C-alpha cells in the first residue's frame, strides 16, 4: 500500500507561561496508508487532537517533518497549507462548537468550495444540496442555522462540510463522543459507507476502544504525547503488548453483565502525570506494575517487535 | 418672606447671636471669627511678585505699608507718620513709625522698603509688577535694565526711620501707589534666609508686619488669619480670626451660606435675586473694573479697520438690558472707559467730570454699519466675525447675549470662541482674534490706568490701534502737573478711542454683590480692597 501521510519525528510543544513547555506531541513517527483507517486512542489530554491538528496543518509542528504523497509539506507556508487544506479535512468532536452559529448550513458547507474557488455559484449550491442528501439531510436544511439541528444532524453537517472540498484524507477528531448512543451508530455507518464509496483515508481519533476497533485497520495508542503502541487492530487486541494498552483494554466496561462479572479487575492506580516539562524516562513508569529503574531513566523507543506491530516499552525487544 | 428663612430663623441653635438676628442668617457659630469666601487660592504671597486680587486680600491683612486705604478708598498713613512732598511733587520724604515689628521680631525700618524696591527692580526677581516701580521711580528703567546701579534708584533711607522716594514725573496718585502691594516693605534677613524661590509659598516661609498673621494655610481649601498680638495698633482689628475659604462652585457657596457654614459670599446675578427673596442681607459695590470689546483693527477683510463698522458693533449692544436682565449684580452700563469709582481732579470723581461718552443706540448702529459698509465696499455677509471671550459661564452668557443682539439689530452672525483665560490672552497677544471681550481692573486709582492701554506702543494694545493724536494726548497727560488740565487731556483721549475711533467699546462697569451674615461687622469691601478687616473703629 502507498503511504499517504508520513510523520517523521513530529513534536508539538506549547508555551504555557514562563519557562513552561507543554509537550503535547512528543517525537511521533508514523505512516498513514492510502485508503486505510488509522485509529488513535489514549486518555484525555494525551495529545490525540493535537496530533490530528498537526497533521491537518492547523498547528505548525515544533519539530519534525510531514510528507504528503511523498512530498514534504511545509505547513508554515501559507501557500502549502492552502493547497494542502483541500486534500485534508477534519471532522470535530463537538458538533455544537464546530459550526459557526451565525452562518446558514448552506454557507457553512459552501465555504470550503468558495475558498478554493471550486465551481461557480450555482454549481456550488447544487453541490451543497447533493452533500446534504449524501449525509441524510434534505436540501431545505441549507437555509437553516446550526442551532436548529440536533447533535447528530450537526455532526452530519460537519461531515458534509469536510466532504465539500473533495478531500482524500479526513481526520475524525472524536466525531461521536459528544453524541447520544443511539445516534453514534448513524455516524459510524455513514463514515464507513463514505469510505467505501470514495476511498477516503481516515485518521480516526476516539477514546471508545470498541468503536476504534470496529472502524480501524490499524490502531495507534498514545500516552502523554507519546506513541506507545501501533499495530493492526486485530493484532493489538489479540496481542496487547504495552502495559498501558493492556490496562486501557481491561478498563473498558463491556455492556454485558455476565462478562463484566467474570472480568478480572485490573484497575490502574494513580493519575496521568502533567505534560508540562515532562520528566525523562518512560511516561507510564509511575503507573506501571512492571516499571524498573531503567524505565524511570530512559524513555523507550518505538520498535517493531512483531510484524507490523510496534511498541515502545523496555519489556519488549 | 419665604418659608426658607422662617425655618432657619426658628431653628437657629443656641448661638449667642440669635437674638440680634434680623434676617435669620446668623452665619457661622464660632464667636469672634468670620468665615469669608475668597473663591480661589492666593497664588503668591510674596508682595514683590504678587499680581492678583486674592493674594492682595491676604497681604492687605497681614502687611502694613507706607499708606493704607481707608473704607472709602482714601489713602491714609499707615507706617508713614509724617510725609513731606517736594514742590515739583516728585520727591516724598516720609518719617516712619518706630513701633512696627516684623513677625520675626525685627523692627520695620526704611531699609526694608529700599530693599524691596531694589529687589523688584532686579530682573532676577522676575516680578510681573516691576513696572509699577520702575516706570515711576527715578532711574527705574535704567536700574531694571542694569545700566545703573540699584543704589541710584529713586528710593533712599535717610536714616532707619526716614524714607525718601523720588518719582520721574509728578504723580497725583502717589499715596495710592504707596498702599499698593508692590510698595510693601520686605524684611531682608527673612527673605534671604527663606530664599527667593520659596518666599511666600507657605505660612512659615513668610514674615509679615501687619494686623493679622497667618495661622493656618491649607492650600486650595482655606487660609486662617489671626489678629497679630505684636501689631502696633491692635484696636484696628475688627475680629480675632478670619477664615478665608476657597470655593469654586456658586451653588455650593449659596448652600454653605444658608447652612451657616460661611459668613460672606459673592453672589451671581441670579443668586442676588434669590438672596433678596430669601431675606438674605445683600450688599453691593462697584469694583472699578470695566468690561469692553476690543476690536482687532488689523482685520481689514472683515471691515474692522473701519471706525463706523466698529462703532456700529458697539452701539448695537443694549448694555442696559445686559445689566438689568443678565448681570443683575448691580453692574451698570458703561458710559465710557473709566469706571465710576475712579478718582478725578479736585475731589470730583473722574466719571462725573467726564460725563457720558458711549451708550446704546440701535438706530445709529444700523446707520453706522451701512456707512461703514459703503466706505469699505464690503457686504454684510463679508463680516464673518468671531468673538473671543473667556470660557467662564458668565462670559459665555454675556457673549451669547451680545451675539443675539448683533444678529437681531445688525443682522450679523457672529461666532463665539470661548477660551480659557490664558489662551484668550495668548490669542490676544498674537492678534489671533476679531473682537475680544476683555476686562480691566485698575492698577491704581487714576484714569490713566485705563487710558494708557491704547497707545501705539503699549503691550496691552492688542487691537493694534494707532492714532498719533491719541498717543500725544496721553504723553502730555503724563507730564502735566496740573490735575485739571491733565484730566481734560484724558477725557479727550477717552472720547477719541471709544467714540470717534471706537477702537474699543466699553460695555459695563462691573459691580460685585455679596451676601453677608448678620454677625459680620467692620468689613470694608470696595473696588480697591476686596476684603479688609483692619478699618475697625
Amino acid at each position: 500500500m502507498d503511504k499517504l501521510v508520513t510523520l517523521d519525528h513530529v513534536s508539538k510543544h506549547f508555551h504555557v507561561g514562563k519557562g513552561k513547555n507543554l509537550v503535547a506531541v512528543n517525537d511521533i513517527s508514523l505512516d498513514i496508508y492510502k485508503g486505510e483507517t488509522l485509529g488513535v486512542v489514549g486518555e484525555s489530554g494525551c495529545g490525540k487532537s493535537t496530533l490530528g491538528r498537526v497533521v491537518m496543518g492547523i498547528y505548525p509542528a515544533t519539530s519534525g517533518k510531514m510528507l504528503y504523497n511523498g512530498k514534504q509539506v511545509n505547513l508554515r507556508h501559507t501557500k502549502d497549507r492552502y493547497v494542502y487544506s483541500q486534500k485534508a479535512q477534519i471532522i470535530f468532536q463537538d458538533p455544537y462548537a464546530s459550526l459557526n452559529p451565525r452562518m446558514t448550513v448552506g454557507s457553512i458547507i459552501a465555504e470550503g468550495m468558495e475558498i478554493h474557488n471550486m465551481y461557480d455559484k450555482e454549481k456550488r449550491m447544487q453541490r451543497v444540496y447533493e452533500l446534504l442528501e449524501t449525509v441524510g439531510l434534505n436540501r431545505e436544511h441549507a437555509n437553516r442555522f446550526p442551532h436548529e439541528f440536533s447533535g447528530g444532524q450537526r455532526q452530519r453537517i460537519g461531515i458534509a462540510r469536510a466532504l465539500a472540498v473533495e478531500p482524500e484524507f479526513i481526520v475524525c477528531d472524536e466525531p461521536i463522543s459528544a453524541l447520544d448512543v443511539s445516534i453514534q451508530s448513524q455516524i459510524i455507518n455513514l463514515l464507513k459507507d463514505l469510505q467505501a464509496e470514495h476511498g477516503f483515508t481516515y485518521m480516526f481519533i476516539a477514546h471508545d476502544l470498541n468503536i476504534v476497533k470496529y472502524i480501524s485497520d490499524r490502531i495507534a495508542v498514545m500516552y502523554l504525547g507519546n506513541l506507545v503502541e501501533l499495530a493492526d487492530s486485530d493484532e493489538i487486541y489479540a496481542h496487547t503488548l504495552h502495559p498501558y494498552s493492556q490496562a486501557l483494554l481491561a478498563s473498558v466496561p463491556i455492556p454485558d453483565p455476565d462478562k463484566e462479572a467474570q472480568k478480572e479487575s485490573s484497575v490502574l492506580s494513580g493519575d496521568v502525570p502533567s505534560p508540562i516539562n515532562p520528566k525523562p524516562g518512560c511516561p507510564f513508569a509511575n503507573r506501571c506494575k512492571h516499571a524498573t529503574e531503567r524505565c524511570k531513566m530512559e524513555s523507550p523507543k518505538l520498535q517493531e517487535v512483531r510484524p507490523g506491530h510496534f511498541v515502545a516499552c523496555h519489556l519488549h525487544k | 418672606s419665604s418659608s426658607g428663612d422662617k425655618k432657619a430663623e426658628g431653628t437657629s441653635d443656641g448661638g449667642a447671636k440669635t437674638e440680634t438676628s434680623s434676617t435669620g442668617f446668623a452665619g457661622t457659630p464660632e464667636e469672634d471669627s468670620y468665615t469669608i469666601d475668597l473663591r480661589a487660592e492666593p497664588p503668591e504671597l510674596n508682595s514683590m511678585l504678587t499680581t492678583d486680587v486674592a493674594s492682595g486680600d491676604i497681604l492687605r491683612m497681614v502687611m502694613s505699608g507706607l499708606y493704607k486705604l481707608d473704607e472709602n478708598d482714601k489713602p491714609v498713613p499707615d507706617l508713614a507718620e509724617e510725609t513731606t512732598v517736594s514742590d515739583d511733587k516728585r520727591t516724598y520724604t516720609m518719617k516712619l513709625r518706630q513701633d512696627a515689628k516684623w513677625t520675626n521680631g525685627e523692627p520695620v525700618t526704611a531699609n526694608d522698603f529700599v530693599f524691596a524696591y531694589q529687589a523688584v527692580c532686579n530682573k532676577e526677581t522676575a516680578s510681573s509688577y516691576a513696572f509699577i516701580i520702575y516706570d515711576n521711580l527715578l532711574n527705574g528703567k535704567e536700574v531694571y535694565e542694569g545700566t545703573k546701579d540699584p543704589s541710584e534708584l529713586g528710593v533712599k533711607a535717610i536714616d532707619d526711620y526716614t524714607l525718601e522716594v523720588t518719582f520721574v514725573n509728578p504723580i497725583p496718585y502717589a499715596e495710592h501707589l504707596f498702599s499698593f502691594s508692590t510698595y510693601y516693605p520686605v524684611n531682608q534677613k527673612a527673605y534671604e534666609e527663606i530664599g527667593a524661590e520659596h518666599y511666600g509659598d507657605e505660612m512659615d516661609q513668610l514674615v509679615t508686619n501687619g494686623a493679622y498673621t497667618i495661622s493656618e494655610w491649607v492650600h486650595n481649601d482655606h487660609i486662617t488669619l489671626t489678629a497679630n498680638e505684636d501689631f502696633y495698633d491692635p484696636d484696628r482689628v475688627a475680629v480675632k480670626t478670619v477664615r478665608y475659604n476657597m470655593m469654586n462652585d456658586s451653588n455650593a457657596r449659596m448652600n454653605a451660606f444658608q447652612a451657616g457654614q460661611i459668613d460672606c459670599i459673592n453672589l451671581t446675578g441670579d443668586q442676588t435675586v434669590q438672596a433678596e427673596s430669601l431675606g438674605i442681607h445683600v450688599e453691593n459695590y462697584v469694583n472699578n473694573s470695566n468690561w469692553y470689546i476690543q476690536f482687532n483693527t488689523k482685520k481689514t477683510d472683515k471691515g474692522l479697520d473701519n471706525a463706523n463698522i466698529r462703532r456700529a458693533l458697539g452701539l448695537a449692544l443694549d448694555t442696559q438690558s445686559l445689566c438689568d436682565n443678565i448681570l443683575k449684580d448691580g453692574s451698570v452700563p458703561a458710559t465710557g472707559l473709566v469706571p465710576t469709582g475712579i478718582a478725578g481732579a479736585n475731589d470730583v470723581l473722574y466719571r462725573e467730570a467726564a460725563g457720558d461718552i458711549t451708550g446704546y443706540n440701535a438706530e445709529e448702529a444700523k446707520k453706522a454699519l451701512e456707512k461703514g459698509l459703503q466706505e469699505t465696499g464690503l457686504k454684510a455677509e463679508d463680516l464673518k466675525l468671531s468673538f473671543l471671550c473667556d470660557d467662564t459661564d458668565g462670559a459665555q452668557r454675556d457673549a451669547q447675549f451680545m451675539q443675539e443682539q448683533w444678529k437681531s439689530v445688525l443682522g450679523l452672525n457672529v461666532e463665539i470662541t470661548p477660551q480659557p483665560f490664558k489662551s484668550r490672552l495668548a490669542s490676544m497677544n498674537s492678534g489671533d482674534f476679531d473682537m475680544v471681550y476683555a476686562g480691566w481692573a485698575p492698577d491704581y486709582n487714576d484714569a490713566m490706568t485705563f487710558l494708557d492701554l491704547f497707545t501705539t506702543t503699549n503691550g496691552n494694545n492688542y487691537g493694534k490701534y494707532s492714532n498719533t493724536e491719541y498717543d500725544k494726548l496721553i504723553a502730555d497727560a503724563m507730564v502735566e502737573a496740573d490735575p485739571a488740565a491733565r484730566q481734560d487731556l484724558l477725557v479727550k483721549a477717552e472720547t477719541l478711542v471709544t467714540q470717534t475711533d471706537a477702537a474699543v467699546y466699553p460695555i459695563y462697569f462691573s459691580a460685585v454683590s455679596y451676601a453677608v451674615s448678620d454677625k459680620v461687622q467692620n468689613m470694608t469691601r470696595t473696588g480697591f480692597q476686596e476684603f479688609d478687616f483692619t478699618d475697625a473703629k
Partner: protein
Amino acid sequence: MEEILKIDNLHVSFDTYAGEVHAVRGVSLEVNKGEVLAIVGESGCGKSVTAQTIMKLNPMPPARIKEGSIKLCGKDIVAASEKEMQDIRGQMVSMIFQDPMTCMNPTMRVGKQLTETLVNKKKISKADAEKEAVRLLQMVQIPNAEERAKQYPHEFSGGMRQRAMIAMALACNPQLLIADEPTTALDVTIQAQIMQLMGKIKDDTKTAIILITHDLGVVANLADHVAVMYAGKVVEKGTVRDIFYNPGHPYTKALLKSLPTIDTKKEEQLVSIPGTPPDLYAPPQGCGFASRCECCMKICRSNQPPVFQVSEGHTASCWRLHPDFPGDKEEKVNG
C-alpha cells in the same frame, strides 16, 4: 427488602420562554436498600430532572412538579418544605454530578467543603470534623489525605475530584446516593477506578445508589436494576440481566445492538436507530419512540403504550407486549 425510594407517576415540567417543556412524563421507580438502580437513556430524556426532583434541586420555578409522588424512606418529598428538604439533603439522600471539574467550589479548600456538611448536619466540632474529613478522603483512596484536604480543587486531578465528591456525598451516611453520570467526563482508566470505588461503597455501606448513565458498559458493571428512559418516560424496567438478555422494548433492543463491542466484526453493519428523539416541548401523542421504531404500528402513533409486565419485576411499555398483539410476521427487531 427495605424500600428506600418510591416514585409514582412523576410529571415535571419547565415553564420556559418558548413554552412548557414536559421533561418528565409519568415516571415510576423504586429503589431498595443496598441496591444499585441504573437509569439509562438518551441525552435530554429526563434522567437528571428525575434525579434532581428527588432532592428538589431543580430551580422552582421554572421547574414544576405537576403530578405524582416521591416517597423517600416514607417521607413525602413533594410536600416537604424547603426547610425540611435541607435536613433531608445530605443526610438521607445526596448526589454527585457528572463534571467533577465544575462541581467543587473553586475558592474553597477541599477539606473545608467536606467539613462544612459534617459541622452542619452532624453537629460535631470542627476538629472532629477535620479528622472525619481526612478519614473520608482516605476511604475514597486519596493518598496523603491530610495534605490534600488543605488543597484547592484545582490542585486535584479529575479522578481525585470525583472521588472527593463521593466522599463529600457520603459524609453524613445517606440512605440513598444519586450519581448523575459520575464517569462520563473521565477517562476509561479513571472511570474504572471510580466504578470500583462505587462498587465497594455499595458493598460496605449498603447505601442504595441511583446511577445515571448512558454507558451500558458501566450499567453492566455496577447495576442491579435498570430503568430505561426515553422522552421523559420509563420505557423499560427490570434487573440487569432482564434488560441485557431479554429486552422487551424496541428501543432497548436497538440500543444494545447499535454499538460495536470488541467482538463486533468489521463487516457487520451496526444497527442504527434513525432520527432523533422527540422535542419535549410538544411530546408526541402516541409512543415517544414511534417515529424511530422499525416496527412502529398504527396504534403506536396515536396511543401511549401502557406498562406491561414482561416477567416478574420486568416491565416495559410497548404495544407489542399487549395481549392482543398478533405477533410478528417477521422479527424485524431481533433479527
